């Protein structure tokens, strides 16, 4: 295999790949977006034309090499084009999470010193206008949807279409300069800067070079045999590294089509209409879909329920084996075929997953039942383990070697080692250049030989060579008696119950473990509806005694399962409570990618933690909440604290049977 860097075709940058695709796949769709109820599409040739017009327009506005251009909005072709157009003029695109509050946005824009902002609509423009006073480098803002901004001061504000028009008008004068800039893009120049949400502290700007992105896209595309015929649905935040790799890196490398949904709310409908062949979703999306299916099945008629149950049982038995190409008896195969006709096929179609050839989930551990459910339907769902700093891929599961409790083997070109402490390290072509303006963090994460610390503790299974992740290395602690404390391990087990949305386990340095629980309003709400339990809010439902009973039974089941593992049997939950509010990124309790921020939660709810350990039955508390528009308020509640049954570690195996 020739390394791409030696390819003379100029495939050392995304604009270079664009040019190749426009020549090779000129009439094939590159982007589709559903608008006005119809899928509008752009071919690769049209895409190049659109992007070049925008790049000329940016030149016209004075964008130059080294400028940072922030891109804020939901997944839309125009915003993807904005990233490539930025690269064309030598600037660095910085996609920003569109749901960040104005202050969070201000931090990012100020930290990178963005000169330009390309924003989707009035909502995003307003946020930037709110904070623009403090931004020293900020000069121009370009918006996509002019609605509501007719009366805004347009001295620094530009309509996307106008910028393109001006670019087209100045084509003759500026084209040679643009071509010079494109030709000047080096393989080690910055391709994109992505801010990590950061479970602790301020977000860090991860600088990824063209080499990082293109080598990774090439390797991963080859790993899964991705070709120009793939269809993907781009619905995950553009500021997230995964979206950049899937919807730009791999899409441009392989020349496949990126489909953008009409709006966040129509995503499921759009998924069904497009029927992607390559699909990525975090576990919560798969969980959500499964919960919806189960809820709807409970409302179905007797015959349908029987059919579903019978065939799903069969699918669980033989489905994953058929998918992995293992031997299965002819009778079972026939029954599976029949099930495919009656149940699996229509169900996959409803879920929009009929055509999925390669599916990935990552970001969090996925429940084994959930994972097996999709695989048993014949969907090739796999796991990968990755980070922004690695340009996503560290390990991934090859076809036919898929399991719910491992994250696979090292990705092509990536080396992985486990340190003494159990922490996982990796190095490879995708390893980031640096954290922008943060040499200290860069030095403490990446050593001189290029090894990067993941911050996760894990080990390789001796017989399969697959990596298993236990927990965040810094979260792994010791209980008072010296036994291992791995909160995430327990939390994940809890979260595998559809009724539990989120869990936070405490116990580092203490005698026993305790937990906060967030119920899943969808699942528990549906249960309440069917049992005629009236409730008006999350808080009310969370405090219902029957809900507490149910959660208690889940906690006790988890205790039984935890007790089986000798190393971790100390992590059984002795006491728990159901929180009166959902943990929320707006309140800083979670990251934008929905990972819990332990420290902040510990500080914010210290009164509740004290109550969990001092033996009291209930606790009154008052919590500050932030509304979506940034205003603050308080909610008060009295929470019940429950004791859960704990298994003695020695008899665990017997009890679990």
């Amino acid at each position: 295999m020739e390394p791409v860097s030696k390819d003379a075709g100029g495939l050392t940058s995304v604009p270079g790949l664009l040019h190749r695709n426009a020549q090779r796949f000129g009439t094939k769709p590159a982007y589709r977006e559903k608008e006005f109820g119809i899928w509008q599409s752009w071919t690769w040739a049209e895409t190049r034309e659109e992007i070049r017009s925008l790049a000329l327009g940016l030149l016209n506005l004075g964008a130059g090499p080294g400028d940072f251009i922030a891109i804020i909005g939901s997944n839309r072709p125009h915003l993807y084009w904005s990233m490539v157009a930025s690269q064309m003029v030598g600037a660095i695109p910085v996609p920003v999470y569109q749901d960040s509050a104005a202050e969070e946005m201000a931090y990012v824009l100020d930290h990178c010193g963005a000169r330009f902002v390309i924003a989707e609509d009035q909502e995003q423009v307003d946020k930037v206008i709110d904070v623009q006073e403090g931004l020293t480098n900020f000069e121009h803002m370009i918006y996509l949807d002019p609605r509501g901004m007719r009366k805004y001061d347009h001295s620094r504000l530009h309509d996307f279409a106008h910028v393109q028009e001006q670019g087209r008008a100045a084509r003759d004068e500026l084209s040679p300069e643009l071509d010079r800039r494109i030709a000047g893009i080096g393989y080690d120049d910055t391709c994109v800067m992505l801010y990590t949400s950061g479970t602790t502290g301020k977000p860090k700007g991860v600088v990824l070079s063209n080499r990082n992105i293109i080598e990774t896209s090439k390797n991963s595309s080859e790993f899964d045999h991705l070709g120009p015929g793939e269809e993907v649905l781009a619905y995950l935040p553009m500021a997230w590294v995964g979206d950049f790799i899937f919807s730009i890196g791999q899409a441009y490398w392989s020349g496949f089509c990126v489909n953008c949904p009409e709006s966040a709310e129509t995503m499921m409908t759009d998924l069904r209409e497009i029927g992607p062949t390559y699909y990525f979703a975090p576990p919560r999306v798969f969980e959500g879909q499964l919960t919806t299916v189960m809820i709807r099945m409970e409302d179905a008629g007797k015959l349908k329920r029987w059919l579903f149950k019978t065939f799903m049982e069969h699918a669980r038995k033989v489905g994953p084996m058929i998918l992995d190409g293992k031997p299965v008896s002819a009778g079972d195969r026939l029954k599976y075929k029949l099930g495919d006709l009656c149940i699996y096929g229509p169900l996959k179609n409803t879920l929009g997953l009929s055509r999925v050839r390669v599916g990935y989930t990552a970001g969090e551990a996925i429940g084994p039942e959930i994972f097996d459910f999709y695989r048993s339907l014949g969907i090739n769902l796999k796991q990968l383990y990755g980070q922004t700093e690695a340009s996503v891929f560290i390990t991934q599961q090859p076809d036919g070697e898929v399991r719910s409790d491992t994250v696979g083997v090292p990705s092509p070109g990536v080396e992985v080692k486990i340190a003494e402490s159990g922490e996982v390290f990796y190095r490879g072509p995708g390893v980031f250049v640096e954290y922008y303006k943060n040499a200290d963090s860069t030095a403490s994460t990446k050593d001189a030989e290029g090894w990067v610390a993941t911050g996760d503790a894990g080990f390789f299974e001796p017989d399969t060579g697959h990596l298993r992740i236990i927990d965040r290395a810094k979260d792994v602690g010791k209980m008072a008696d010296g036994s291992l404390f791995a909160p995430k391990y327990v939390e994940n087990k809890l979260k595998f119950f559809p009724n539990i949305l989120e869990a936070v386990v405490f116990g580092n340095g203490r005698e026993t473990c305790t937990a906060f629980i967030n119920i899943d309003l969808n699942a528990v709400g549906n249960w309440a509806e069917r049992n005629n339990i009236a409730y008006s809010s999350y808080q009310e439902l969370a405090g219902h005694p029957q809900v507490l009973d149910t959660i208690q039974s889940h906690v006790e089941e988890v205790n039984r399962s935890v007790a089986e593992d000798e190393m971790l049997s100390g992590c059984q939950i002795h006491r728990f409570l159901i929180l009166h509010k959902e943990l929320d990124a707006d309140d800083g309790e979670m990251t934008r990618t929905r990972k819990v921020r332990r420290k902040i939660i510990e500080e914010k709810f210290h009164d509740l933690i004290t109550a969990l350990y001092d033996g009291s039955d209930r606790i009154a508390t008052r919590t500050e909440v932030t509304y979506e528009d940034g205003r603050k308020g308080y909610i008060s509640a009295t929470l019940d604290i429950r004791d859960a049954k704990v298994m003695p570690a020695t008899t665990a195996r017997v009890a679990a049977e």
Partner: protein
Amino acid sequence: MTGGMQMNAMTDQGGYVTEDGRKIGGVMMEMKNITLRFGGVVAIKDISFDIREGEIRAIIGPNGAGKSSMLNVISGFYNPQEGEVWFHGKRRAPMKPYQVAQQGIARTFQNIALFEGMTVLDNVMTGRLTQMKAGMAAQALWWGKAEREEVENREFVEKIIDFLEIQNIRKTPVARLPYGLKKRVELARALAAEPKLLLLDEPMAGMNVEEKEDMSRFILDVNDEFGTTIALIEHDMGVVMDLSDRVVVMDYGKKIGDGPPDEVRNNQDVIDAYLGVAHE
């Protein structure tokens, strides 16, 4: 019906410019000494006011003040016993609802009046009925002109669906929607008729704060984007004062105030009507 346009020269051309820089044009509709009775009950007593091109005009007042009756007079549903309604510089004769619609007036209702069993899309499409000219046979066969018309109108409706951000419920039957969304669908249907004058009867009644904010934004955007003149009735004073350019205040069928929000807010009669004083 087009004759009215040529008569525009007769109307008062003196518009004004709002605080946020919108240009308000000449008088679009003028109510002259309107009195409306139901048997012995006088619902509206000798009221005069005007609505100008491009403005957001609110009618407020306590319960039973005659606001909805006034809106029904504007929409031509009620014919006042006394007084004249002038529209585009022309005195308006009593007319049928479909004639009102053809004149470019559309409305929403206080108690939602949608076709509950039909989808959102179909409901909004009914707003385009005045634009469809194909004959029954052609429509039944969906052939020729009927097909072209349907495609054109669907495109227009899709733009409104996009504008009001209801793409995700496009194919949902209205009966399954929550109240706040039904109100938005009603607004969509009214907009589908491409009205020059849009009448909103309590567009925010029964909504929570967030829904009210959304609806306010849509009303402002409609006015801004399509230049639609809007007359609305609303109870929420905060909303009215924020949204409207000029406000008519009614109490017991009489007009007790008329002017920009700030002026009306400080009007003693208005304060009395809202806070309550003894009526002789």
